């Protein structure tokens, strides 16, 4: 068969990444003292299909590496080896290693993982120490080459009839591996009995419908042969007879000797959803599908969960979402033809029908928009799935005991947002781990349970998604933070700050440059970067903390980056859009609230705060309605970690706007984050708060009182 296998590589890579994720999460769930056989089987299956796939596609390094992993897993699975924490760690390392190998193949780079050989040796050392039977080191790529090699004149050997039960694959056994092992003993001829093969559309790819007659021409003991089938002998029909002269290879039917033909047609058509194809379907030739047609197709419940990696640029979309979309388009077409007909023969009498049609059209459009948006939505578990491993590794290296809870994993979020929130989240979780949760001793001393808890929680609120990182650690140490802030000149002596203002200080850039991290018992390493990244997504992050009880970081993000809730504002004849999420409040300006500071910067007294005022008209060089500040409205916005009031002429409507790039055809414009098209087809610019602040020259307002606030000069 001259099929270009490279066209399947991407699928293989994606499935392997999924398989690795499955292995990783299952390994993390593994309790050495209480081994759950289903978990082991799950890991084994994933490893097995990666090995099979990599063998099939010619990634022999991956295949041989995975082979030793699988062999050890098999021993654990069969109970001939105890699982220990060291072995779990070794498995985790090998998962990383396989992932890197596959990533390198994926990137088309030469595969060079220095530690691969080392890990492989460790595995082999463990294996050789053990009592297990399966230590053959047959390169999987050599598989199947056996058929033609038999020599019919061989004098001694064994004739083996092997008919495993249907479930043999699900229990983690693989006939192919057994055959390979036999092959290592001597020339082997395999004849497959495909008579039990069901029609193609009722094949369960994980069931084994085949029976085999094997002719092994090797001068070995019967016990050696039996050993190969040691793990399946109870669940299968097995006869082992000495080879007589009549049993020669020429009886082998040429069709049957290529079990891989049958394997090439896994019944993927059956899968209703565009879910990942069961890994077993492309594993190894011996996974031959087929069965008695009476055997009902088993639901694919044993498949690993859909956990593709986030980095790939394609999306797997549930068929239901596509169906929705098709329905919606159908509706739209109907409405369109209805309106078209109306237009052909229009009189004023049909005006109500026209209006009705337009109403319908707008509803269709809205629904269509929502459906299209849904296509890009993925459950946040894609991002959350990396944390169990992170917490596992970090807590071990720091000698802490931490339990990670994840809630709302099914909450959906736009793919682009998800990709970009990953790093800030990792940072926050790491922070909770590092600075939040105390050591077990400290925890016991302060009367808390030894094991700390970090909770990741995601939910929808309004048009936003909220992600919380909650820990029950030490909380923020206000005194220390305040001291640090005074040292760094962020806060003037004698300033009275509210608790949340103090907590907020950890997001200040000054804090990330703290000379020693341990100087602050709270947090603050790189938190300014976290906040900046989240702000760039038009989101916000806040912290609440109670000393001694823990902290909660709350991130609010728009569901998508493509659409924004905007507030239309007007200055003169120009309409601009402010992201609604950045607006704190809008107020009519009154003389008594305004203060002019030497240097030209106006301040708005907003309750107990002084907020610098930015005149949009002067920084954009446009003509406002009036020049007096009392004529306009002040919109107080928050951006770049500070509040400013923007002087505008009027507030217009609020609406959802589709964000378009200005850079695509023009270039970045200071103070503008993008553009959108309004209902009348004109273009309106979306304002970028931090850009405006930069443009206006207002400096960071440092919680100072008016009397010494003159560094807030324009």
């Amino acid at each position: 068969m001259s099929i270009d296998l490279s066209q399947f590589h991407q699928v293989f890579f994606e499935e392997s990444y999924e398989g690795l994720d499955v292995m990783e999460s299952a390994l993390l769930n593994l309790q050495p003292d209480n081994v759950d056989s289903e978990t082991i089987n799950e890991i084994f299956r994933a490893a097995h299909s990666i090995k099979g796939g990599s063998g099939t596609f010619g990634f022999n390094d991956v295949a041989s590496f995975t082979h030793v992993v699988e062999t050890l897993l098999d021993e654990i699975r069969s109970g001939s080896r105890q699982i220990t924490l060291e072995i779990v760690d070794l498995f985790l390392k090998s998962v990383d290693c396989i992932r890197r190998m596959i990533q390198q193949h994926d990137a088309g780079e030469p595969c060079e993982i220095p530690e691969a050989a080392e890990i492989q040796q460790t595995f082999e050392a463990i294996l050789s120490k053990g009592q297990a039977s399966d230590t053959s080191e047959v390169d999987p790529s050599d598989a199947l080459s056996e058929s033609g090699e038999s020599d019919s004149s061989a004098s001694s050997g064994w004739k083996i009839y092997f008919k495993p039960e249907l479930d043999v694959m699900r229990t983690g056994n693989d006939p192919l591996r057994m055959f390979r092992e036999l092959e290592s003993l001597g020339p082997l001829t395999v004849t497959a009995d495909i008579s039990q093969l069901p029609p193609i559309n009722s094949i369960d790819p994980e069931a084994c419908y085949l029976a085999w007659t094997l002719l092994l021409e090797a001068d070995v003991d019967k016990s050696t042969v039996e050993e190969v089938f040691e793990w399946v002998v109870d669940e299968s029909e097995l006869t082992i007879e000495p080879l007589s002269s009549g049993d020669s290879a020429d009886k082998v039917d040429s069709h049957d000797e290529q079990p891989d033909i049958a394997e090439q047609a896994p019944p993927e058509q059956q899968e209703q959803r565009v879910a990942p194809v069961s890994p077993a379907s492309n594993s190894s030739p011996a996974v031959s599908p087929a069965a008695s047609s009476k055997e009902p197709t088993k639901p694919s419940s044993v498949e690993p969960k859909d956990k593709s990696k986030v980095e790939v640029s394609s999306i797997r979309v549930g068929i239901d979402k596509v169906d929705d979309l098709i329905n919606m388009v159908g509706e739209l077409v109907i409405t369109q033809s209805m309106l078209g007909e109306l237009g052909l023969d229009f009189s004023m009498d049909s005006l109500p029908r026209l209006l009705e049609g337009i109403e319908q059209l707008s509803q269709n459009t809205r629904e269509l928009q929502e459906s299209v948006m849904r296509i890009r939505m993925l459950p946040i578990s894609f991002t959350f799935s990396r944390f169990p491993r992170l917490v596992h590794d970090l807590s071990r290296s720091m000698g802490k005991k931490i339990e990670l809870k994840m809630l709302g994993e099914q909450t959906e979020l736009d793919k682009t947002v998800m990709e970009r929130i990953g790093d800030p989240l990792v940072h926050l979780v790491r922070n909770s781990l590092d600075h939040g949760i105390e050591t077990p001793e400290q925890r016991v001393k302060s009367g808390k349970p030894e094991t700390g808890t970090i909770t990741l929680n995601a939910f929808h609120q309004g048009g936003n998604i909220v992600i919380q990182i909650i820990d029950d650690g030490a909380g923020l140490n206000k005194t220390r933070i305040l001291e640090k802030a005074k040292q760094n000149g962020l806060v003037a002596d004698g300033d009275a700050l509210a608790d949340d203002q103090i907590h907020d200080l950890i997001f200040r850039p000054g804090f990330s440059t703290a000379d020693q991290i341990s100087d602050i018992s709270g947090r603050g390493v790189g938190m300014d970067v976290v906040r900046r990244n989240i702000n760039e997504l038009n989101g916000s992050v806040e912290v609440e903390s109670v000393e001694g009880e823990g902290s909660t970081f709350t991130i609010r993000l728009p569901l998508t980056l493509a659409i924004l809730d905007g507030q239309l504002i007007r200055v003169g004849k120009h309409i601009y859009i402010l992201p609604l999420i950045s607006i704190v409040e809008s107020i009519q300006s009154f003389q008594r609230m305004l203060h002019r500071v030497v240097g030209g910067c106006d301040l708005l007294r907003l309750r107990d705060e002084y907020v610098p005022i930015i005149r949009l008209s002067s920084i954009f060089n446009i003509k406002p309605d009036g020049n007096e500040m009392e004529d306009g409205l002040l919109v107080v916005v928050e951006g770049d970690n500070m509040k400013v009031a923007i002087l505008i002429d009027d507030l217009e409507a609020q609406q959802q706007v589709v964000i378009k790039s200005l850079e695509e055809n023009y270039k970045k414009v200071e103070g503008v984050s993008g553009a959108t098209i309004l209902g009348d087809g004109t273009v309106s610019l979306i304002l970028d708060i931090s850009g405006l602040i930069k443009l206006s020259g207002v400096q960071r307002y440092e919680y100072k009182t008016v009397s010494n606030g003159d560094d807030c000069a324009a």
Partner: protein
Amino acid sequence: MAEQQSADADVARINEEISDAIAHEPSEQYLTFFIDNEEYGVDILSVQEIRGWEPATEIPNSPAYLKGVINLRGAIVPITDLRLRFGIEQFEYSPVTVVIVVKVKSGNSEKIMGIVVDAVSDVSNFSTADIHPAPELTFNKNTAFVKGLGSSEDKMVILLDINKLLTAPDDVDLSEVGRAKLG
């Protein structure tokens, strides 16, 4: 009104010629237009379409020649007034004022931009032999933006290198492009 109609008809005719030119073999075809009674040309393969003038949304703090951005079927397209870009005095926009939408190569990507000109003229053929290098006079520092001078029996057209022209930094003074013909 009649003027508007004839302008529309012109636009339609030239749009057709453009698609013809694109459909057929790439040739030395140039779309020519007028600015301040001077005839200029751009490679027809870089022209996407011609539109009438419509008000654009101003971009704050941008040079005066950038009239703003318009919505071209969902894309945000910047519009440059070539007259102003060449440092010629402002001209009242009229119904025959047109925007030529061009595709400009910028690095590896392609940008869509619009240029405002006084009026479109024609689609002209200039074979390589008809194109003369612009005189490189010491006083004209803008010849880099001129591909050459295309001459036919009755006229001489300044053929612009639209890629260089529209990707030139804002502070490059292009006031001498229009004088490429001198000498």
